[in-house]
């Protein structure tokens, strides 16, 4: 059997493109848009999110047969919260500046609907490896949206990509200006709206 036909691969690839958690299921847009002003913070956030989703799915799936049905929410929340604490402590130890910029938003991964949603709908009914891949895929699907939004905002708003100026000086000399609006909160909403439109139109034309 080819690798592209295994259940684990499917669980990984599907949420990245076809069933993207943000665009299709409109989940998890919550808090994380606030970190998309710069690509650097968005990438770190995407990694933290992928880590938490993947490992919470793995853990919950491994315990799925011993968790009593009526306390499962509490169990899921404690697993997720512990992983978030872990991610936060690592960030604070090794990337203090970025952790300061992300401020409360790392903590808010706990209440991100994607993590909870995957635990509830997928991990509780599937074996650990597959759930891990599913978590990884959903994290990556979410991360790709985050990084795309951040790329557009940083490029149009500050003329930079990952902190490096990419718009040549010549452009500014002839009157090109950075769009300050892109750095503000409303721009994130509008970019997401337009990206959803693009995604839906592409899906339909296929």
């Amino acid at each position, binding site marked *: 059997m080819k690798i592209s036909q295994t259940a684990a691969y499917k669980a990984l690839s599907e949420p990245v493109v076809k069933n993207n958690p943000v665009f299709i299921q409109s*989940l998890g847009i*919550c808090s994380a848009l606030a970190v998309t002003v710069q690509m650097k913070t968005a990438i770190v956030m995407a990694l933290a999110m992928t880590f938490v989703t993947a490992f919470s799915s793995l853990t919950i799936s491994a315990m799925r047969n011993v968790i009593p049905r009526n306390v499962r929410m509490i169990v899921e929340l404690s697993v997720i*919260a512990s992983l978030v604490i872990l991610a936060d402590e690592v960030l604070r130890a090794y990337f203090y500046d970025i952790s300061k910029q992300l401020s409360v938003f790392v903590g808010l991964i706990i209440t991100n609907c994607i993590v909870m949603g995957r635990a509830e709908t997928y991990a509780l009914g599937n074996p650990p490896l597959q759930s891990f891949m599913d978590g990884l895929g959903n994290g990556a699907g979410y991360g790709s949206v985050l990084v795309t939004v951040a790329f557009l905002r940083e490029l149009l708003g500050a003329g930079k990509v990952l902190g490096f100026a990419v718009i040549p000086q010549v452009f500014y000399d002839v009157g090109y200006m950075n769009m300050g609006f892109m750095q503000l*909160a409303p721009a994130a909403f*509008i970019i997401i709206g337009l990206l*959803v439109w693009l995604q839906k139109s592409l899906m339909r034309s296929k």
Partner: protein
Amino acid sequence: MENLLGLFLNSVFVGNILLAYFLGMCSFVAVSKNMDTAIGLGFAVVFVLSITAPVNWLVFKFLLSPGALRWAGLESIDLSFLKFITFIAVIAAIVQIVEMVIDRYSPVLYTALGVFLPLIAVNCAILGTSLFMVERDYSFIETVVFGFGSGVGWLMAIVAMAAIRTKLRYANVPKGLDGFGIVMIVTGLMAMGFMLFSGITL
């Protein structure tokens, strides 16, 4: 007093928890389809926020912050890294208690808010407010005002959105943009409107 009024207005308008910090988006998109449920959820959020923010402040101050356990003779212990898990547990517990109390004493309120209360436990706006209060180092009174103000700001945003979506039903939205896409763009425009308040200083 003026300071508190300023903080209140700031948390309602300029630093609106939804439009400026993107908190509570999931339930905002899902619930703003219908005016009645939007109002119900909005008030439930105000209610829960006004209780959880001060309670979490007390928990943080007397149990978690560095040196908080002095009263128990454990001066060098710093439990602030446990704030995420503690806050979410406190919120879940309070939501449960509030639900039971309302159910017991006010059946009318329960039918109005009851279905929304479990939803609220995982609303990012609730946890976000508690985390902001720690980060910004608010005093107890400030926390009370900030919690209430954030709730009111969220209520206003969701009610306004529900009203816009009622009108939007008659609008000719391009295919592919209807639903989630247009909601995001309208929210963006609303956020722009709210930004105008940021020029006002008290």
